[in-house]
């Protein structure tokens, strides 16, 4: 498989390491003072463990370890392995903690 890195061009997937669903980016924001209750644990459990498993397009995180060291968001069809559009640096789409 080949991944279109926005910095390095189309590169072999061996240069990248895979992390998983790009929803990991949506880390819940929780002030330090908030007491941890079951609802919060459930929310975080969902964030860390629960994933959709679509048999189609999937937004996912790839790290270009053997290249520019950027974390990228790649839109990949997990049935065909086709990658739709160039990968986008995750940092461009991040949130303020």
């Amino acid at each position, binding site marked *: 498989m080949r991944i279109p890195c926005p910095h390095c061009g189309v590169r072999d*997937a061996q240069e990248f390491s895979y992390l998983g669903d790009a929803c990991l*980016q949506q880390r819940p924001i929780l002030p330090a003072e908030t007491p941890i209750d079951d609802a919060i644990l459930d929310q975080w459990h969902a964030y860390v463990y629960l994933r959709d498993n679509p048999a189609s397009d999937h937004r996912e995180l790839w790290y270009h370890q053997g290249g520019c060291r950027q974390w990228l968001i790649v839109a990949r069809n997990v049935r065909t392995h086709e990658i739709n559009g160039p990968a986008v640096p995750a940092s461009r789409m*991040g949130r303020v*903690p």
Partner: protein
Amino acid sequence: MTRTQPNRLDTGGLIDRAQPLLFKFDGRTYQGHQGDTLASALLANGVTLVGRSFKYHRPRGILTAGPEEPNAIVELRVGARREPNTRATTAELYDGLEARSQNRWPSLAFDMMGINNVLSPLLGAGFYYKTFMWPASFWEKVYEPLIRSAAGLGRGAGMDDPDSYEKSYAHCDVLVIGAGATGLMAALAAGRSGARVILADEDFIMGGRALAERREIDQLASVEWAGQIVAELAAMPEVRLMPRTTVFGVYDGGVHGALERVSDHVIQPPAHQPRQRTWRIMARRTVLSAGAIERPLVFGDNDRPGIMMAGGVRTYINRFAVSPGAHVVVFANNDEAVRTIGDITKAGGVVEAVVDPRGGASEFVRQAAENVGARLIEGVVTRAHGTRAVQAVDIESAAGRERIDCDLVALSGGWSPTVHLTSHLGAKPVWNEKLAAFTPGQPPTGMTVAGAANGTFALAECLSTGAAAGLDAASACGFRRAQIEVPDADPESTASSPLWRVKSARGKSFIDLQNDVTTDDVQQARQEGFTRVEHLKRYTTLGMATDQGKTANVNGLALMAEMSAKSIAETGTTVFRPPYTPVAIGALAGAHRGREFRATRTSPAHAWAKAQGASFIEAGVWLRASYFPREGEKDWFDATCREVRAVRTGVGICDVSTLGKIDLQGADAARFLDLVYANTFSTLGLGRARYGLMLREDGFVMDDGTTSRLGPDHFLMTTTTANAGKVMQHLEFCHQVLFPNLDVQMISVSDAWAQFSIAGPKSRDVLARVVDRQHDISNAAFPYMAAARMTALGGTPARLFRISFSGELAYEIAVPARFGVALGAALMEAGRDFGITPYGLEALNVMRIEKGHVTGAELNGQTTARDLGLGKMQSTKKDYIGRILKERAGLIDPARPTLVGVKPLERMARLRAGAHFVRRDAPASAEHDQGWLTSAAFSPALDSWIGLGMLSHGPDRHGEIIRAVDPLRGGDTLVEVCAPVFVDPEGVRLRG
């Protein structure tokens, strides 16, 4: 003794008669020519019996002239270069080649295991599954060795392969797979359009069936036409011809795996050349022009040597100038095979009969038979006679049954497009009823299929579809289509109508020759309920082994369909997976074997450790000093104890350069560290170091290390050696994905610095002689957990940290990597008066166990900070990775195994990591398991074995006696639970 070549024709063929080559088969010497394959050379010499079959050990000959060969598989070469299961039909002949037949004992002509043929009624489908079931105890000792000795094909060399292999990469616009008429046109069209083209073909001469047939293209003999096109392609600067290269796999995104046989056609690889090279070819567009494979016809004893595919017969006659038989019966269900009639006659053979099963032979066949005066029989061959060679066939027709003597049967059951590569990414081939063949389903993105591989069998169409595919591919890559004239081809008929088996056959009718699967086996599998094609394959082994059923699959499916009263389309086909033909593991491994299996990393001070006589050990990717043996020491144990004592009483140095080091800078660097560490770093003072604990988001500990503040916005993090890469990736993730608004930059400087630990009561005295004079390292000026940039060795930039893993007064000093060896030497010199002692990983480990410091054995990804007794380090005043989920009920359960120390009651009783804890009075069984021993060492300080472990309710059980049970190695030791710090629990020494 050299033999002549009785079956060699005087003229024609692509062989060099001026270049005789000597080769050996089963110890006998024969002569062939440059341009031969092993198979063609054997046939030229009249050798038709070349192997024994897999299961019944039946005599087998050469069926085909290509990579689909199921029978003629031999051991090639001798000694360490011996390679089993190679196809004689593709093995290029060279002077000095040695080959042996397989699967026979004591000899090919007389084979003891031929008894299996007599026993064959007992050896049907599923025989192994049913027979070797009981008694279970027989399996390992009796059945398996028996099966192993009886089954299998060739023998491995059993020695290290003396040759080398390599991997290589290539990029192109258009990859054309297969250089027959279609592929040549495709490459020509793409090449003339200006595309960068790779044309790969498994054969050593390009041209495919254009070399094997007497056809006319543009008023030229097809073989000459092919030669001209190849010459034109070779002259194009952007076209790369790759003969002897099999594209064996198609992968995502236009990636192709290919095997180039660089040196298989010479007696041994030339200097600096590999035997084979594995290519990864990246292509923007691919044209698959892999041709088609001819199907055998299924009748009684259709496996006898001398029964050959009609296309193969034509190849041997036209390309290799070999007459494979003098008295020939042609048995074919299609018009194309009748070319064989003319070719045989031209080669001096006599066509005894043309058997056409279609119930009305075409005018085309009638004419061809008439032209040579051959009898045309509308009927079927029901059985072959002869054992080691075919002698006659029984033919059944409306006129009744008759027997015709012959020494060659040329068979054709029609052609199956070589669709394998189209389905490597999951698309199933689709059944085309009109062609009676599977044609490509949806090919992978970027691939077009042309010519016979697409079911377009007529030469004229091969040429036109090839050209169109080449132009389209180039155009899709942005090149302007070249003007190209599609050449004419002589007229032909490709009419065919399927005959899946001869129903009135007598004797064993083989479907899969390589695996000895007969029509009876398929019927039996069906009766036993194995009706799905995937089940049929596994149960009968139809389509398995080295040829993967290239000639067998479709006939097998058709029979299954017939028995199930279903269409072939409904029956479906099994999936083709890479590789298309066998690929040696060595070729896939390339240079990565033995010592080069993976990179060996050495510390920048490696030469220093070597000079000190270190014994090295592989630790993860690193080669590290394990201990430094001295004369008179029995083993590692003596050396380690000495090194530990030296550190605890004097001073020792240890190379710790392999630790991960990450430099972090930026206005938000401190905030960032607060987010990635469980404890707080924003409060860390300038010039101070702090132990940090990093969690994963799921609440478990990920890594630990010390991080120092070298400037207001400048930190230096250390990680464990093993996790250096993982932590770097994690930090990048946290920054780029989670907290991209933070102003922080980071880079791994692991390889930039050489770092030594100097430990022991005398360490400051030694260090004072190494760091430059202007730096005050007194206890007051440079206290415990101080960190500073300074210079050493007379002006060399250095970083000094007062941190201790051993529990002694200790420092770590880092210098730029290129000064690593010099620093080691300088420290040894400076410490000479103090008896300075280099120590290795073993001593380091003993001392950290004595101090209860955790390493990979405890930080195993399943332990929380609480489990490790480090719960109080976790901040309650800030957000950080892992903060929330570490509070899950299961992770704060006090019954969780928690870090303790253990001491055996008998101090010399050896403890081993991996032992499990049970209560003193409890049986050693899984339900009484209370934890496990993570680390163990002999402590010279305590003169006793000690250990660290994880024990349920651990901290409440200090003083309790429990068992450490190690059933794997026979250990069962009573140990006392204690605090996990054995030496200097108050930490006085490291502050001294």
